């Protein structure tokens, strides 16, 4: 397994897009931290990168990469190697390289300029989101044979998680505003890894506003060690479940 992983990593790291992505993140975070006058504003701008750009790049890159690895996968399939190992090696390779690109591009600047708990949480969530969206990409790929369709699905998934889901939630909130749905919202938010990460960071960033009545309910949950742990467990599930399903599907797939 390690050997295949090694080839995947070597292949991705040679990829110019990966280098460009890292450079872009570095440039963006570097300029944000040097241009914004307050660290709170800088963190907010970085937050937008983490919640929008990172998932988009992760899911699209991973999708395209897996499609382009078709030859590689086929070549390996006739060899005495478990299918599971091939698939996992690709996932690990993607996770590691996307995570590494994020840590270099965002993690290092954040830890240099904003060495706070908020900064640390931001970096942790961003790294997790990179991996989560690689996992979702693998799911999209395994269900669509056609490359163009697969990339389309990946972008749709991103659109769903960044805006459609929240739109639906907002619509639901307007409909159900007369009911006590605060607690249910905690569960709903865990259905979207981007929302979950956003709320975790928000709790540090907008703590004052969140101390209001509704905020306090979220704070009571997400702010505690249990809530924090559960949130991270939920984020981990967002990795494990898509990877698990795609793995199951891949090991039965005809190639």
């Amino acid at each position, binding site marked *: 397994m390690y*050997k*295949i992983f090694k*080839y995947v990593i070597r*292949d991705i790291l*040679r990829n110019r897009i990966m280098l460009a992505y890292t450079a872009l993140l570095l440039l963006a975070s570097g300029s944000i931290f040097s241009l914004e006058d307050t660290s709170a504003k800088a963190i907010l701008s970085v937050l937008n990168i983490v919640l929008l750009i990172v998932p988009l790049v992760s899911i699209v890159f991973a999708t395209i990469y897996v499609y*382009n*690895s*078709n*030859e*590689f996968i*086929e*070549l*390996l*399939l*006739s*060899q*005495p*190697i*478990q*299918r599971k190992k091939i698939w996992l090696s690709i996932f690990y390779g993607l996770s590691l390289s996307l995570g590494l690109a994020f840590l270099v591009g965002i993690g290092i600047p954040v830890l240099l300029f904003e060495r706070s708990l908020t900064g640390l949480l931001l970096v942790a969530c961003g790294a997790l989101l990179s991996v989560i969206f690689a996992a979702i990409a693998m799911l999209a790929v395994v269900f669509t044979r056609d490359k163009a369709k697969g990339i389309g699905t990946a972008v749709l998934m991103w659109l769903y998680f960044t805006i459609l889901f929240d739109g639906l939630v907002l619509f639901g909130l307007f409909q159900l505003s007369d009911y006590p749905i605060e607690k249910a919202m905690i569960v709903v938010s865990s259905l979207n890894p981007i929302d979950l990460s956003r709320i975790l960071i928000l709790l540090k960033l907008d703590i004052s506003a969140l101390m209001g009545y509704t905020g306090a309910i979220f704070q009571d949950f997400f702010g505690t060690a249990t809530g924090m742990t559960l949130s991270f467990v939920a984020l981990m599930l967002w990795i494990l479940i898509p990877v698990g399903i795609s793995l199951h599907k891949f090991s*039965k*797939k*005809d*190639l």
Partner: protein
Amino acid sequence: MIIATNVHKQFGKLQVLKNISVTCNKGECIALIGPNGSGKTTLIKSILGMVIPDSGFITFNGKNILHDWNYRSYIGYMPQIGRYPDNMSIGQVINMMKDIRNHEGSLDEELIQAFDLEKLYDKKMRTLSGGTRQKVSACLAFLFNPDVLILDEPTAGLDPVATEVLKEKIIAEKEKGKVILITSHILSELDEMITQVIFMQEGQLVFHKNMIDLQQETGEQRLSKAIAQIMLKR
């Protein structure tokens, strides 16, 4: 050595393999023939575990291949169309395969030398012609001295010299007592080497015969003529 029992496979509505049962024994060189779309490649891929049958099972040396993967270390496979990572060179692909297979016995690099591939080691896969790709595929299939060779249209795209080299290599391996499963459209190529014929049509096994029996039955020495006769009878 390889026994397929009642293998059935469907892609969507299309039935590709209908209750195929075949047996391949040691020392046999089997020609898998049939018109386009008759299910030859699917059967091969089933044996390799790349396609998973809907029902029926395949055993290799008495072990079901469904949850096994190690049996593939006894198989050398040459695909119909060899597809390789575009940005790797021939040398990298061959070295990667050596690295991944982690083969313990001696390596069979005869073909590499015969094709003079080493000169091309730095060439990227994406720049290769179909023929050169086939050469790479052939080299990889024979490289690890496998007991079973599965060759899907091995000579397609090869120039006559290379075809000859490959044929000789196949015959040499057959002499060593290896199982060889080979598909080809060009039946004349097969005459010199095969001992068995499996004929498939529309996913069904039409017959599986010994070459000598076939010759006696039809009174034809050449495989192409023998097949043609059978087709006419039906």
